[in-house]
């Protein structure tokens, strides 16, 4: 489940004039726009879940295993216990996005710190930090997440932490690579010559330039986090107190033959979320690299 490491782009002679602003460049990519729209819808759903479905979505409200579109009260049907799937999807959007964002944020913070520290310090610190990064990259991610979750218990905090812990290495690598390429640039050397403190240089000069690709990668980390959470829930280690999409898939697993919509609906939801994140990530990447063009 690694994020695609290369979004290779290349220079090309252009027939049409190049769009000037970032937003315009982003909008040119139809897939990215579609992805952004879907993402926005999901976020809206997550935000309004409490208003649309005020009661606890884990409450049993109706007869079990009602098919979607059979009853107007339960447009997406009910699950094996009689809970409203639409409510679970709405509240699940909240949990899913939260896990994704927090895990990605954690991974980004860790990754950027380590990558920046390694690139800036150089020498043996760099070597050690890179070995640590490699260490975390070697351990198969799913295994690590499972182990951490069984150590800390099936709670949303543990799952988020576990996912964050496996997602930071690619960010660290990318940050380091970006930092290294900027470190030797003229404007940085000028700042050093002037006597700016390293921290100021990093914060004011390097980071703003190095961050964009990192942000792109973070969007893919969010997607990965969502997938990891669904795997953990599928294998039965999900948090029983939270309505998450992955958990719904896990619970529907034994009913896959008679009421397969219980698995299918949240599965499609996960797919849409991950898909839109990927498309947006691609769009961001294209828009942020004006010199390089996909076509």
């Amino acid at each position, binding site marked *: 489940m690694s994020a695609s490491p290369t979004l290779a782009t290349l220079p090309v002679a252009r027939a049409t004039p190049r769009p000037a602003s970032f937003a315009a460049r982003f909008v040119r990519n139809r897939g990215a726009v579609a992805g952004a729209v879907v993402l926005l819808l999901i976020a809206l759903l997550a935000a309004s879940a409490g208003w649309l479905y005020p009661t606890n979505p884990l409450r*049993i409200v109706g007869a079990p*295993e009602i098919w979607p579109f059979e009853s107007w009260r339960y447009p997406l049907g009910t699950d094996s*216990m009689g809970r409203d799937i639409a409510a679970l999807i709405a509240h699940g959007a909240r949990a899913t996005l939260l896990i994704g964002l927090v895990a990605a944020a954690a991974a980004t913070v860790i990754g950027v710190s380590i990558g920046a520290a390694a690139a800036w310090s150089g020498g043996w610190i760099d070597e050690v930090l890179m070995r640590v990064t490699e260490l975390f990259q070697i351990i198969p991610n799913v295994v690590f997440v499972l182990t951490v979750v069984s150590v800390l218990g099936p709670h949303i905090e543990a799952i988020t932490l576990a996912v964050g812990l496996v997602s930071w290495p690619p960010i660290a690598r990318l940050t380091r690579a970006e930092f290294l390429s900027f470190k030797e640039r003229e404007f940085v050397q000028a700042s050093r010559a002037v006597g700016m403190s390293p921290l100021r240089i990093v914060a004011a000069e390097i980071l703003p330039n190095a961050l964009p690709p990192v942000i792109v990668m973070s969007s893919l980390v969010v997607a990965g986090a969502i997938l990891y959470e669904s795997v953990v829930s599928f294998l039965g*280690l999900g948090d029983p107190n939270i309505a998450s999409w992955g958990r719904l898939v896990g619970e529907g697993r034994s*009913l*896959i033959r008679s*009421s397969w919509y219980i698995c299918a609906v949240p599965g499609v939801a996960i797919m849409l979320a991950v898909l839109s994140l990927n498309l947006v990530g691609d769009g961001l990447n294209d828009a942020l690299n004006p010199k390089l063009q996909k076509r």
Partner: protein
Amino acid sequence: MTQAPRLGRRAFLTRTAAGSLAATGLGALPQALYAATAQPGADAGPARKGGTLVATWGGLEPQALFVPGGGGSSPFQTSTKILERLLKLDADLKFQPALALSVTPAADFRSYTIKLREGVTWHDGAPFTSADVVYNVLQHWKPISAGIALKSLTDATAPDAQTVVLTFNAPVPEFFLKSTLSGQYQLLVPKHLYDGKDLITNPLNNTPVGTGPWKYGKWVRGSHVEYQRNDKYWNPGEPNLDKLVIRWWSDPASRGAALETGELGLAYSNPVPARDIDRLVKTGKVVVDTRGYQNTAWTVTAEFNQRRDIVNRREVRQAILHAIDRQFIVDTIYYGRGKPAIAPIFSSNPLFFTEDVPRYPFDPKKAASLLDAAGLPVKDGKRFTVNLVAAAWFEENAKLGQYLKQALEDVGIAVKLDSVDRATALKRIYGDYDYDIAVSNFTSPLELVPTVTQFFTTDGIVKGAAFRNATGYSSPEMDALVGKLAVETAPDARKALAAQFARLASTDVPIVPLVEIQSFTLAGKNVRNFTTGANVQGETLADVWLQA
């Protein structure tokens, strides 16, 4: 496979299309032989010899093929094909001779004489004698697998090669002893291969040698184990089949699909979600049978930790029970496959069941008022908080945990729900006693002592041992009652004592069976004779045969 009269054309075509069954078009064979039988799997004509059967159960691969201390249902299935017991409890709840021809009590019931079957040999050719039985009683059963049941055993002797005498220091009811001797963990291992070595870690447990109809063939870990026919089995002509394969699937949906395609022929102990049974039976390829589980009646329990405040008060427990709708649990979580339990003795137990016990019908208002009367009113939205630990080794337990959370919250009790995996559950519930209310399971044979009674007696409190008295409940009245139950030899008096036990257990309610879970078996339509015992998972499958 021939066409039974009521099979429609479509079903017939589906079968031939699946191609998993033998040639069709056997119009020459008499219809009577294949008439639709009323009992699924019951004897339908002379047993046909030959063939391979693939069997499984509703769980996973065991850690060893034979686990001396128990190890649960998985090694129970694998070991009972190779290793045998002295007696067998059949589907009509009568004891049949297996390796023992008779078990006779003395007049004072303080000793029993066992006559062994002659002409039995172990798979390696050595003869089976009373020395083997004595070894097992003293070195295997008493110390490891049946310590509590054989508590009063003082000695086992072998006056001759076919006779064993067991002596006890207290009277032992006949049904109780016979139940023990035919029980789940009283398998016989060869003395000449086990004596002098540590039973628990003997590598032979992975390649067992026994007297049974099947010999160990090959174990492909992660997949299946193959058993060969024992040509020198003491019952000539059996086993009917040539080869037996026990295979494991980690996913219930795959098991169902395997039954449909014919890859799997026999699956005990709830192999598929109850939801799928009707669908599978409708295909015409699979039959369902709910008989054969009387001696292993499963239940799901709510257990109240007597060491914690609030739940250690009887009136609180009784109030909580009124908040639980057991019928709803049966209907929703078990898909109607079961019935609400009213006491630790189940309706499937004709010997000891009684309806004359205190009941706690679903009545949330009553629950609320009882809690108010107990001095636990609603303050700031809740009365008190409990930590509910659901052992999630069954999916239903996890669901039950969620339902209980909701049910209790509806009467104002806040619930912190932990749905934990097997290792954590064993530690928290039976090791650390770290819970207020626990959701767990046990399975009960017909004989109440000690399996069921140990949940209620003081000597059943054994820290660290799973499926014992984990609640810490201790009542001198209960201990005395069970003490009498253990040594009362007159059947009627025993039944009366059992009824008293049920009443006391249902009054103090430290551990409450909520549902009598119905177990079922699924088999291919051509499998015969797979339900002849009262605990079918442990059948030797010697008399199973496959219709052509």
